[in-house]
């Protein structure tokens, strides 16, 4: 029941009235002149390398994680090629081990974990809460440098012969028996953890203390709730990984046996500590993507999110329950039967808030006027693939099934449905949805849809056969296999090549759009949310005047033909007409 007046508005007056409680004492800045934005505020390299603008730091992260994504992808190309044939003919067993380790370490720690929070979160959290920047801009820049330092250590580990422990660094592969450069990779993982922690501290402080007047907690976009929950997980999980890596590093560097059974140590203790971080890490990867999906679904179905509070609290519930399920990675390590039972039960419990989100998104779509554009295709892809990943997760939480498929391709397929089908789809959807805001340019919609559809089908062709392979008993992390499995492996590799093209396409057309894309205007999707109430690209300090929020989030109405007057959510100042809002009527 939204009226044109009930949408969020910019306050048109000078905000010095004390009634608001938050005045805007900062006068106009160089970057806030008309025609000036965060991109053209300054051009030299130093202005990027020493920027404290959250938007520029977001762009720095975007460039670096894209590099790591294609690096990790290159490793995947090589081992998918190897798996085309049953025999190990392209690479040796050792090289294969190093390839999948490199793929895992880079994709998990240097792409998936920072992807949404450090790129989209960095860029959007201050905009969405109506602030001029994050609470600690210098720490934010420091977090990017820390990320790069961690990345350099990891690259050094790769260049000096690679690491063959798997991304899990299980002892004693990583301590007693590993003879590759584990230490450099471990330092890289340790260092990069600090960059996530700094991002999380920034997001928490910003959301708590810097919300615009009128922006109460339950008016926040669900993207913010998701990032808040993610930040809690990062804060409480990452340090446990840090101390674990230190213990392994000390064991390795000084040849002492913290996890060495020869001295009475316990390698399983390492697994407990590792998964105490690394299961919640899955939620670090997927929760922010869920936040993205909430925004996209609501906007392109033109409906308020169904069950806003349920989705908001589901994020928090996932963050809390996610810490209590790590033992499901250890059903076959000989942990106590009762521990297994409890971990199995809790793992099923954590599916409930995830399912609540999926049902709420579906209910949001119901009777919505759905616009099938690129971001929406990614969001719908997310729902489908995440549901597949989540349901197979329930199979795996069942102890008997897990014992059967443990360490097979079933596991590989399951977590790729969550981490690629979920997180990467959400990330790409978000990149497309906010691309006009970040760059001021529209991406080519046709190419966008082609890529989204290619990725969806390529993904399923890559990973669905792996469910079958795993169920039939093909072990993961082995470079050769019995000939019966070849057909399914060839299907998977073929899918991977489609997936690869699907990922290269956006790299091409998004860069193309920087120069040739149509100008986007402030609000091309006719979306609610404070980030759409300022210029695209936004000025250095985000808003020309302090925004004030008067209503709940997501007060969408069905698309209206532009002929019937101005679109319902055009802000008071005359912005350019909402380009795609009208295209949606065709």
């Amino acid at each position, binding site marked *: 029941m939204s009226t044109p007046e009930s949408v969020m508005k910019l306050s048109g007056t000078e905000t010095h009235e004390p009634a608001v409680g938050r005045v805007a004492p900062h006068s106009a800045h160089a970057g806030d002149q008309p025609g000036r934005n965060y991109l053209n505020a300054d051009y030299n390299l130093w202005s990027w390398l020493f920027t404290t603008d959250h938007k520029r730091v977001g762009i720095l992260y975007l460039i670096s994680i894209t590099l790591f994504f294609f690096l990790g992808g290159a490793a995947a190309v090589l081992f998918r090629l190897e798996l085309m044939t049953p025999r190990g003919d392209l690479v040796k067993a050792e090289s294969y081990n190093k390839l999948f380790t490199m793929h895992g370490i880079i994709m998990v720690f240097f792409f998936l974990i920072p992807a949404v929070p450090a790129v989209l979160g960095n860029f959007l959290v201050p905009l969405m809460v109506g602030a001029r920047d994050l609470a600690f801009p210098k720490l934010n820049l420091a977090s990017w440098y820390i990320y790069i330092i961690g990345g350099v250590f990891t690259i050094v580990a790769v260049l000096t012969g690679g690491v063959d422990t798997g991304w899990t660094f299980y002892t004693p592969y990583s301590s007693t028996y590993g003879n590759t450069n584990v230490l450099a990779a471990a330092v890289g993982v340790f260092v990069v953890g600090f960059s996530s922690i700094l991002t999380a501290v920034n997001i928490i402080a910003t959301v708590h203390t810097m919300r615009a007047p009128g922006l109460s907690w339950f008016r926040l976009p669900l993207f913010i709730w998701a990032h808040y929950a993610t930040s809690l997980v990062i804060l409480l999980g990452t*340090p446990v990984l840090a*101390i*674990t890596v230190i213990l392994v590093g000390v064991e390795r560097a000084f040849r002492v046996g913290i996890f060495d059974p020869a001295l009475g140590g316990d390698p399983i203790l390492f697994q407990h500590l590792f998964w105490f971080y690394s299961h919640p890490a899955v939620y670090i990867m997927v929760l922010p993507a869920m936040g993205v999906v909430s925004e996209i679904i609501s906007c392109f179905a033109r409906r308020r999110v169904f069950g806003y509070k349920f989705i908001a609290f589901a994020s928090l519930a996932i963050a809390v329950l996610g810490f209590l399920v790590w033992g499901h990675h250890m059903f076959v390590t000989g942990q106590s039967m009762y521990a297994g039972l409890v971990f199995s039960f809790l793992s099923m419990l954590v599916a409930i808030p995830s399912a609540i989100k999926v049902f709420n998104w579906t209910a949001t779509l119901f009777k919505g006027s759905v616009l099938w554009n690129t971001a929406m295709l990614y969001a719908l892809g997310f729902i489908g693939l995440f549901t597949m990943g989540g349901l197979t997760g329930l199979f795996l939480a069942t102890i008997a099934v897990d014992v059967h498929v443990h360490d097979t391709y079933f596991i590989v397929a399951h977590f790729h449905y969550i981490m690629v089908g979920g997180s990467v789809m959400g990330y790409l959807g978000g990149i497309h949805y906010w691309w006009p805001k970040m760059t001021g340019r529209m991406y080519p919609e046709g190419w966008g849809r082609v890529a989204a559809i290619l990725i969806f089908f390529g993904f399923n062709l890559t990973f669905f056969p792996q469910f079958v392979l795993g169920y039939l008993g093909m072990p993961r992390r082995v470079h050769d296999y019995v000939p019966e499995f070849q057909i399914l492996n060839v299907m998977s590799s073929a899918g991977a090549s489609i997936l690869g093209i699907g990922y290269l396409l956006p790299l091409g057309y998004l860069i193309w759009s920087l120069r040739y894309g149509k100008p986007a205007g402030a609000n091309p999707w006719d979306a609610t949310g404070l980030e759409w109430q300022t210029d695209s690209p936004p000025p250095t300090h985000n808003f020309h005047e302090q925004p004030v929020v008067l209503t709940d989030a997501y007060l969408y109405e069905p698309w209206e033909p532009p002929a019937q007057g101005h679109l319902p959510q055009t802000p008071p100042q005359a912005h350019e007409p909402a380009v795609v809002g009208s295209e949606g009527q065709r």
Partner: protein
Amino acid sequence: MTNPHTPAMAHHATSAKNPLAIQFDNLEQQRFAASLGMWSFLATEILFFGGAFLGYAVYRNWYPHAWAEASRQLDLTWGTINTAVLLGSSLTMALAVDEARQGKSRGIAFFLMLTMVFGTAFLGIKAYEYWHKWHEHLIPGTSFVWSNPATIGPAQLFFSFYFVLTGCHAVHMIIGMALLLIMWFKARRGDYTAEWHAAVENMGLYWHFVDCVWVFLFPLLYLVDRA
């Protein structure tokens, strides 16, 4: 409160910088954010040490006698003295924060210096203890010497945890000392006022946290089952 960004204030330069950062509306909001940021970071720190304490708890539970035996090799006298020194540094840090609330730059600098003196004393004593352990071949690894062959493995585990835990604590102390030194210069320059001294308060939170870690480490490593 007057708006510190008005041009009229620009040349009124007793202190070099305007403390209000561009992204905040007022100092109260800025202080809240800074404090919340520090508490969030300390939550991280608790989980960091928590992981090591978990390992300690598991092995202590598995090898109570060997660990008690190894624990008796630690120097109770110096450990106790060090605990007193560190608690003393917490007192001076608290006094520095109190001076900051009153905006007394000289008082802040004085108590920060005392805190650094205590901190240096702690690290010096710790270094002496480490040196002593090295002298007695109690550093885990190939040169570890232990009289009882039945407990040599778990005893090494104990010393591994002793060095990792106290080492991580010492690294936190060293980082804290470096920050104290910077803060000491800034205090002498008059950067902290009664209105704006959140950095000193945050430094206090961090320093007290590091002390609290020792308050757990000392009994766990030196005292449990010692008799």
